[in-house]
């Protein structure tokens, strides 16, 4: 559950809870008055009948008859009718029920339109309020499973809807939050997946049946991704076509050169005499080789950058791979008496596409051998970082390094460091290395080492 989910959830929950509270309060206020009335006198229909009967007796037969009636009723086990005069004294001189006095009776009479209380002018000259005492006081206790149930449970009545309301709003808030946050989460996954190069990511299928702005957003995403996918595909296709088209004339050129050489060595005496033609031919051959190499590198880089070709990773013994590369680099350094030193460290395994990783490290080693002075040493070292399960691979040369501002630039395509006056290469080697290492979830950085040269550091995740 994401943050958004909880935000939605809490927001809706509080909104609903507030609504429930306000409504309960309003209902409570309305109920309160009736409740108070109900507590002072009995307003139920039987009580009204009693009040009506007593009022009729008083009006027709007078105060004595009412008194006899009340005496008669006194023997019955039922709520008692009170007849209270304007001085607050009961006709039978009984104590008044709790909360009843002149003032409350006056107020009740003014309020009440339900005939539960009546004020009658009697023949003895007094006014009498006639009402029945509240039922709760004398009604028998209710038993539930043999246990005495508190009769005043209904005073808890407002708490029940409150609890139910809270639970229901909890449920609905959760549902609503889920309803909003789920498609957003799906969208996020789709975006992440697309950002990681999976241009087949679509949300249309998981959002099926939804008809709202979020679904619109989803279909807009789908349209966007398919458009990007088309663009990437057409660009890769174009790169492919371009390199193929560039290579065809190059291939023809090389065969044409081969033909001239072949034919002239066999027949043309003039060619053998003219050494300059031979030199130029060799030069043309070298340059076409170079161009071919460059086209190849460009193709590799564009493929890696687009990330369209999935890596074919396997478990690789890094030590084995490095030893092979060091052998090759040493072979290359022989002419200038450059040594590549490497202390083998076994049991480092990485998950990588072998030829790509080899190429990435080879580019760095070759660069080091190229820029380190004659009779010097290039140091290759590996250390394991057990905390974040990675291997740190460093290649240090004894050259002049680069200026600090160039430390990041050297990984950009076709960038050539200022001090590389004897530069060969095509300026793509380190860019390819960076792409390869990053596509293997690693990093590559450069730094200048005091009193030494440039040091390139590769960090790669290791596996058991």
């Amino acid at each position, binding site marked *: 559950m994401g943050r958004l989910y909880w935000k939605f959830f809490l927001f809706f929950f509080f909104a609903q809870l507030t609504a429930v509270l306000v409504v309960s309060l309003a209902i409570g206020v309305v109920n309160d008055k009736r409740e108070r009335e109900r507590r002072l006198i009995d307003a139920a229909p039987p009580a009204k009948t009693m009040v009506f009967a007593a009022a009729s007796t008083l009006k027709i037969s007078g105060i004595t008859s009412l008194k006899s009636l009340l005496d008669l009723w006194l023997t019955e086990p039922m709520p008692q009718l009170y007849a209270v005069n304007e001085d607050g004294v009961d006709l039978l001189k009984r104590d008044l029920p709790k909360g009843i006095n002149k003032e409350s009776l006056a107020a009740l009479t003014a309020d009440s339109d339900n005939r539960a209380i009546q004020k009658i002018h009697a023949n003895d000259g007094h006014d009498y309020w006639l009402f029945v005492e509240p039922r709760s006081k004398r009604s028998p206790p209710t038993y539930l499973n043999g246990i005495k149930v508190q009769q005043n449970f209904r005073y808890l009545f407002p708490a029940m809807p409150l609890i139910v309301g809270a639970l229901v709003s909890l449920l609905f808030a959760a549902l609503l939050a889920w309803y909003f946050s789920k498609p957003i989460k799906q969208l996020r996954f789709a975006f992440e997946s697309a950002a990681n190069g999976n241009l087949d990511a679509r949300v249309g299928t998981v959002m099926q049946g939804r008809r709202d702005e979020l679904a619109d957003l989803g279909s807009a995403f789908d349209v966007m991704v398919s458009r990007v996918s088309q663009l990437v595909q057409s660009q890769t296709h174009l790169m492919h076509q371009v390199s193929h088209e560039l290579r*065809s004339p190059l291939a*023809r050129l090389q065969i044409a050169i*081969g033909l001239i050489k072949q034919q002239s060595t066999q027949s043309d005496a003039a060619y053998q005499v003219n050494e300059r033609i031979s030199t130029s031919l060799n030069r043309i051959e070298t340059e076409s080789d170079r161009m071919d190499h460059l086209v190849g590198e460009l193709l590799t880089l564009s493929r890696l950058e687009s990330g369209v*070709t999935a890596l074919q990773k396997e478990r690789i013994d890094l030590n084995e791979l490095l030893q092979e590369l060091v052998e090759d680099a040493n072979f290359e350094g022989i002419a200038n008496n450059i040594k590549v030193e490497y202390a083998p460290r076994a049991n480092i395994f990485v998950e990588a596409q072998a*030829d790509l990783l080899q190429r990435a490290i080879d580019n760095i080693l070759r660069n080091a051998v190229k820029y380190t002075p004659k009779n010097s040493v290039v140091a290759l070292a590996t250390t394991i970082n057990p905390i974040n399960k990675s291997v740190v691979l460093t290649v240090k040369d004894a050259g002049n390094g680069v200026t600090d501002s160039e430390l990041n630039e050297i990984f950009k395509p076709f960038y050539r460091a200022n001090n590389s006056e004897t530069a060969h290469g095509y300026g793509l080697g380190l860019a390819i290395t960076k792409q390869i290492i990053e596509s293997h979830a690693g990093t590559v950085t450069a730094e200048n080492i005091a009193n030494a040269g440039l040091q390139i550091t590769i960090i790669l995740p290791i596996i058991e």
Partner: protein
Amino acid sequence: MDKILLIDDDVELVEMLKEYIDLEGFSANTAHDGEAGLQVLQADTYDLVVLDVMMPKLNGIDTLRRIRQNSNMPVIMLTAKGDDADRIVGLELGADDYVPKPCTPRELVARIRAILRRAKPQASQAKTITLNELTLMPEQRRVEWSGVPLVLTSTEFNLLEVLVERAGNVVSKQMLSELALGRPMAKFDRNIDVHMSSVRQKLSAAAGGKQLIQTVYRLGYQYLK
């Protein structure tokens, strides 16, 4: 004179290549797409085919698949440089070697010579080798396992021959490349590995699942005695 068929859709290139190859003492013929190439192969016999991967109609991979259905003749693939996928697929389907394109004609002819030299029985190696159930007949370029013939391409045969001649010893990939392909191993070259995997599969299938060729870590391959 060895007859070579060049199949490539680049008409100009193929004509120049034919001229070059003819001057080197071969007899070359050309075809410009896979379909046409297969027709030419049906009409006549050739000693070697040079096959471009990227071609209209029937591409090189499919053409190779069709050739391998009824022939183990030597095939060299011309692949776009850097297109490792094509190269590996080609080798897995039984191409004997590949030459990245563009290449110098000198390089291509050197490969053709190397493959042809090893595709033909040589007097010096003419004696039959028998090792348990395996019988290797270099003069006929045939292999049998318990009397049942094993169908291998020319390069696969060469590799097996090199290993069996040195049965019990580890042979490095470099050595295998030089002896069986006739060239030193190139950087990042997976040629030997792909061919070896194919040989091992075929041999293991014939020997009822037994693994007779062992990969020796960092060193090479070994035929177990």
